[in-house]
């Protein structure tokens, strides 16, 4: 309600126009959050080309330089250097790239798999539904990081693809719950029942009617899940059981910085703030999306 603008100005326009109108009408804080996310995405895509130095290049003479300092070889370091004299800005860009890669692919993977599991449960009901729901309940009550850690313990660290899938799997049970619940209620009571009575087949009901209707809820769930995926990945990398050197994620960066708080706070501060602002922006945008996409608040009825 806080963000929704139920003004009738949004009526009778294409969905793109409506989306743009919503963005323009959003509060300043949401715009700032979106700006931040766009910047992060831009960095993630172009990191390879915009980083000033090789992120692995060590320079032992230029160790622990503060932000804005010039190194022994005359190199300018906007964010300073780390304990091996590597340029922090370049390492930050590279880390953002990897963190976003894991988060985007992981979230996408988890969303698709989770939603499909929910559809399957709703479509087949019976024992299939029962088994899936027991697994969903179990997952909901078990901290995912524990499960991830036990898999890592066995499979070992360093397998990037496995790690992405594992991290992305976080939250699958919530997608499953949403797609199952909304499908069931649509099929049993609402418009889907009405359309079935007109003689429509399963595919038409699911693809043309149910999917577009629950897509909004799934998108909102993605916006909730995405920051959680970022936090899970960076936590695990921070703990040393996630992304392994020489690759680097924001979590790795932060964990190096922990040891230099006394004399080089920026090594931890810069990646920490990057993670924090990203998750915060995503939460703010997510809250706003939830209000905008909710037909009950945006229709004004």
């Amino acid at each position: 309600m806080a963000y929704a603008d139920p003004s009738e100005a949004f009526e009778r326009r294409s969905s793109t126009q409506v989306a743009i109108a919503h963005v323009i009408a959003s509060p300043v804080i949401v715009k700032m959050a979106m700006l931040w996310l766009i910047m992060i995405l831009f960095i993630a895509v172009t990191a390879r080309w915009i980083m000033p130095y090789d992120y692995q290049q060590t320079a032992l003479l230029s160790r622990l330089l503060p932000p804005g300092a010039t190194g022994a070889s005359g190199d300018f370091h906007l964010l300073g250097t780390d304990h091996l004299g590597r340029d922090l800005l370049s390492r930050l860009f590279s880390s953002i790239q990897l963190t976003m890669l894991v988060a985007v692919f992981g979230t996408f993977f988890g969303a698709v798999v989770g939603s499909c599991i929910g559809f399957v449960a709703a479509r087949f009901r019976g024992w299939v539904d029962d088994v899936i729901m027991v697994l969903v309940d179990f997952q909901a009550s078990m901290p995912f990081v524990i499960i991830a850690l036990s898999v890592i313990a066995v499979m070992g660290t360093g397998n990037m693809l496995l790690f992405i899938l594992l991290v992305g799997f976080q939250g699958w049970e919530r997608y499953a719950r949403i797609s199952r619940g909304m499908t069931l209620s649509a099929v049993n009571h609402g418009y889907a029942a009405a359309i079935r009575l007109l003689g429509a087949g399963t595919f038409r009901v699911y693809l043309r009617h149910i999917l577009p209707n629950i897509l909004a809820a799934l998108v909102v769930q993605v916006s909730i899940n995405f920051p959680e995926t970022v936090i899970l990945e960076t936590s695990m990398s921070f703990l040393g059981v996630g992304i392994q050197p020489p690759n680097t994620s924001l979590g790795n960066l932060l964990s190096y910085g922990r040891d230099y708080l006394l004399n080089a706070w920026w090594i931890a501060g810069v990646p920490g703030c990057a993670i924090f602002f990203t998750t915060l922006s995503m939460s703010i945008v997510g809250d706003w999306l939830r209000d905008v996409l909710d037909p009950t608040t945006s229709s004004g009825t």
Partner: protein
Amino acid sequence: MEGPAEELKADHSTPLEISGLTVSLKTGAWKCAIVEDVSLRVRSGEILGLVGESGSGKTVTCLAALGLLGPAWQMEGEIRLARTRITDAPSAGQLASVRGREAAMIFQDASASLNPIEKIGKQLTKTVARLRGVSTGEAREIALDLLRRVEMPDPEERLHSYPFQLSGGQNQRVMIAVALAGRPELLFADEPTTALDVTVQSQILDLIKSLRDETKMGVVFVTHDLGVVKEVCDSVAVMYAGRIVESGSVERIMNAPRHPYTLGLIESMPTLSGHVPEGIEGQVPAPDKRPPGCAFAPRCEKAQEKCWSQLPLGAEGDGGDSVACFFPLEGDLGRTERPEHPTQSRSADEPVPDTLLSLNDAACDYDTRSGKFRAVSGITLSLNEGDRLAVIGESGSGKSTIGKLMLGIEPTSEGAASFMGKPVPMLGTSDHVAFARSVQLVPQNPFLSLDPRATIGSQIEEPLEIHGIGTKQERRARRRELLESAGLSPELAMRYPHEISGGQCQRAVIARALALRPKVLICDEATASLDVSVQARIIELLRELHRMHDLSIVFITHDLRLARSLCSHVAVMRSGQLVELGETSPMFEAPEHPYTSQLLASMPDVESTDSPTMETTQ
């Protein structure tokens, strides 16, 4: 504003006097008057009916009188209760001392109006102790006594029940008992019986009347049902778009309405004697889009130029006659000409029509966690071509199950459901697709049965698409035709369900159902969520469709008056059994089954000469 809620000289003969009340909703710079310039007076022992359709501002008026509107609301004008004057922003402490003592209120949804996790006895006892300042022990005795006074069965036991363990009617009795706890001089009753079954409704109405006689309290009875007004009220104030448009005694208003809206409202009411309701075209303007002149002018047949530009002098709901109209109607309602009787028996030489749908000794079980639950059993009835069959019953009677059996949504556990001699195919089977072309459903809630993210037009076209009927252009043309025959303007095709009104939605659902030119339309409480003036228009539409397209109709409803105005045959259901089946007018004139008589007697009716409750007390 002046000082809040100041003490007045006690005036027990007039427990409520409202003058010039305007209530506005304010968010930021946006401000909109919901109730405008309303004046009312209730004397002790009087029941004033506050009548209007949704959005007329009747509930807001009551809430304002108790200071129950939220901080976003602003109030101008004056409200005097028996001892206190309520103004804008009264102090919380003073309001708390007024509420429950000078005026109490009961609500539509009694079950949701009680604290769900506290026992009835405790809620009642606490209220009595607080309002009467007695000890808990005494309060408990009084609470029990109150439950007896509201004729609660097993009052001692009920003290230990939670609200969810009681029925809607019992909870409303509890609410009334709570309202009586502070011996108020005034009771606001906001649609207290709307959610209840008719037989329960008539008991609650009797109760309110007898309590009024006993305590001499004044009652403001808010309702949209003129039949109920006729039964319980002494005087009436009719509200439209935030203003009182007419007031007077019940007899005068019912027999000789002077405002065109009042007349329209009365004409919209179906009656047990078969009056065919005539609705009012158009819809109530939204509060921020009210015209500068008379708000009813856009819907009024008699409107002249003056009506559009000038506001007629407001009517005052003080029991005396007044009307806010430049051109008030004269004379009696004079419902002289009997409408075409909907239930003409066929002459003997006509060929017997084909049977379309029939149930033969059908039963239906639902699976619940504790086993099977038999929803209906031993149902034998049939729908012939051209019939309009009403299936009547109270909640839980199994009337909706009949519709589900006929549509193939539920299987018969015993007996058979058949369509034109063949068993009704189950939903989801390939046979059902062809069956769907002949039998269609119009469900109760049109909003729920339309896809919120598809346009009205595409949804009306969809059945044609599903069944591969016509080319794209032909479907477009047919869509136009369907919209028109359902009384919708073609530009609504591009709208989404949440952009149009409830009545328009229901028309769209009907248009969609008609797309396949079905033989049978099954309407499951299809008008229950609509305002009476809109309901009347839908009934009109269904009658017209029946006449023009030879449509057979199964009309599932709780409202006997609607059955009478629309249907040729009636099936009365009670707890899963069919208790009476027959042609409409003979049954309504001389019901065979005592339950049917009871239903008929309980049904409030604007045309009845004496109130049905009198009959039962005789």
